[in-house]
């Protein structure tokens, strides 16, 4: 005698209630993300679910360094070659042009700008983050390959700064993504940014800049915080 002997009627009802529960979940799916049928070039009809077919739904994994001595050398290389994602998220991005021009020339220190998250390993959050931008920041951050570092610029990323009471901007950045270096000020001078890069280099050389692993470790906590404020969560939980 089998333990789970559910007759077909009950099974049907269970399925229906499951279906109902699924439907009643409030989902924010944009029209272009809905499941749809597409005619392939060869004439066959294929079904596409963009949220699951275009992205990997896999959770991030911790990637521990393997060999201590090799890692020390690699960390030196990482610290001397910091590729910054060119995403000006706030008004701090006005101080990025001075950094790449003669006065403050950050190329001297091996800091370069890259236009795509796939190739960059440092993310400058330049100032306040509105919720709408935070969503894009999370996506860009998750697309960056590990090891990755976050530099938070300005008082507004620390405790909200001038916008502590704004309905649109977040107060603390480290609740949503892990932060390696904070640079205080409104707005911080380019020299402060250069000092921040110096600090980040020290951290990398000491092997302390492992915040990508921290993100993977506390993934559920970060996700809960992110989902609390992003009301229309219409993307996969982790997108590569």
């Amino acid at each position, binding site marked *: 005698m089998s333990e789970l002997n559910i007759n077909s009627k009950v099974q049907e009802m269970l399925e229906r209630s499951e279906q109902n529960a699924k439907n009643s979940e409030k989902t924010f799916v944009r029209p*272009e993300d809905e499941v749809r049928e*597409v*005619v392939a*070039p060869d004439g066959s009809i294929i079904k596409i679910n963009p949220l699951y077919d275009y992205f990997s739904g896999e959770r991030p994994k911790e990637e521990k360094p393997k060999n201590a001595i090799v890692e020390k050398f690699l960390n030196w290389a990482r610290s001397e070659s910091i590729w910054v*994602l*060119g*995403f*000006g*998220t*706030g*008004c701090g*991005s*006005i*101080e990025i*042009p*001075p950094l790449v*021009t*003669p*006065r*403050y020339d950050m190329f001297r220190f091996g800091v370069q*700008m890259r*236009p795509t*998250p796939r190739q960059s390993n440092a993310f400058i959050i330049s100032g*306040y983050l*509105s919720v*709408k*931008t935070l969503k*894009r920041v999370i996506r*860009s951050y998750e697309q960056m390959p590990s090891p990755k570092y976050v530099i938070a610029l300005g008082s507004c990323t620390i405790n909200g700064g*001038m*916008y502590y*009471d*704004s*309905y*649109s*901007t977040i107060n603390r950045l480290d609740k949503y993504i892990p932060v390696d270096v904070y640079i205080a000020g*409104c*707005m911080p*001078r380019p020299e402060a940014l250069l000092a921040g890069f110096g600090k980040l280099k020290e951290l990398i050389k000491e092997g302390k800049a492992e915040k990508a692993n921290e993100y993977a470790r506390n993934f559920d906590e970060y996700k809960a915080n992110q989902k609390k404020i992003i009301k229309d969560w219409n993307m996969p939980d982790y997108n590569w």
Partner: protein
Amino acid sequence: MLNNFFGFKPDRSKYPSVNEDGSLNIDLSSHQYTKLWLGPNHPGVTGNMAMELTLNGDEIVEGKTHVGYLHRGFEKLIERRLFVQGFPTSIRMCVAEPDTNEYLIAACTEELSGYDKQIPDMAKWLRMLSLEMARLQGLLRGVPGQAGTYSLGIGVQWGVYLRDLILDRFEELTGARVYHMYIIPGGVRGLLPEGFKARMEDNLKDIDDFIVRIKKLMFDNAIFKKRSIGQGIVTKEMVDKYGVVGTTARASGVKRDVRKDNPYLFYDQLDFDPPTAEEGDIYARTFVRWQELIQTVDLIRQIMAKMPEKGDIRAQMPNVLNWRIPKGETYVRIESGRGEYGMYYVTDGSDKPRRVNLRGPSYTHGVALLEDLLVNTNIADIHALMVSLQTCPPEIER
């Protein structure tokens, strides 16, 4: 004829076909159109802004702008701050030229409280100096930035270096590099430091040299001309239809400059003539801005020559912490580097404003005008178009 042959432009009046309600009939599953999102993480989009493009090949058939990535709710925040607390908040509304915001909110509060007649002359001259310096630093980034959009980065490097020098002068004058908070209700915060004029003159000489060099680099450059002439045309008729202001309107042959039309401060005592052009394309806009750069350098020299040596810099004002302004409303406009920049200010008799609304030039340039100019443009020209319209997202969404 030959030019038209190589610069092949499809006739968008024939396709895509238009539905009955006026929308375009675009079927994405027909493999004819591509949906492409440009921004917010895109080096070719000015600031933090997104564009939803429908492409046919690499020509745009429909473009929609999405703003709000920089929304901080300034207008709401100022409503719950005292008048004087609104100053540090308001100047952060647009980072490219913060001084215009300072002046606007100062002028609005002074006008509504009736102190606008008591501002000392010295303060007015200093305000003008600060505003013109702000315009200069904006243009130093903007004029070579137009060539930068076509990957001619060398001018940007020179320009941003000179902008840093102007920011040094700002630092001397106000103590801050980007957000100055120099213009306060009733006057300004300080006099010129000793030797300021000589150091400024040194920098202006460097900028004169830069102006000559940038002309050779950009305006005599065959490929720059090829890329910019005939692109993104704003016609004379479009100026009023879309609310186009500033250098963009002047490049279309509409001579409109708030400094000449409704002189504020002592602009009526200065000798200048806003440059204009007729063509209205990207080249004309950049050329007008380059002339504006020459004119701004000259205006700073004029201001420094005509300015008195000493004088009061602040009017006798009430205690700002208990400052109440009677019920009223006003709209004050000035000419920023990008065009008419105005503020609508409503007070209700309490110690906080009722409503503050900023009208930046980007609000019309960056949404309605840009969306219409995008149609039939190549994706290679989007960045150039945005920079030539001087789109500054933070002042659209505030």
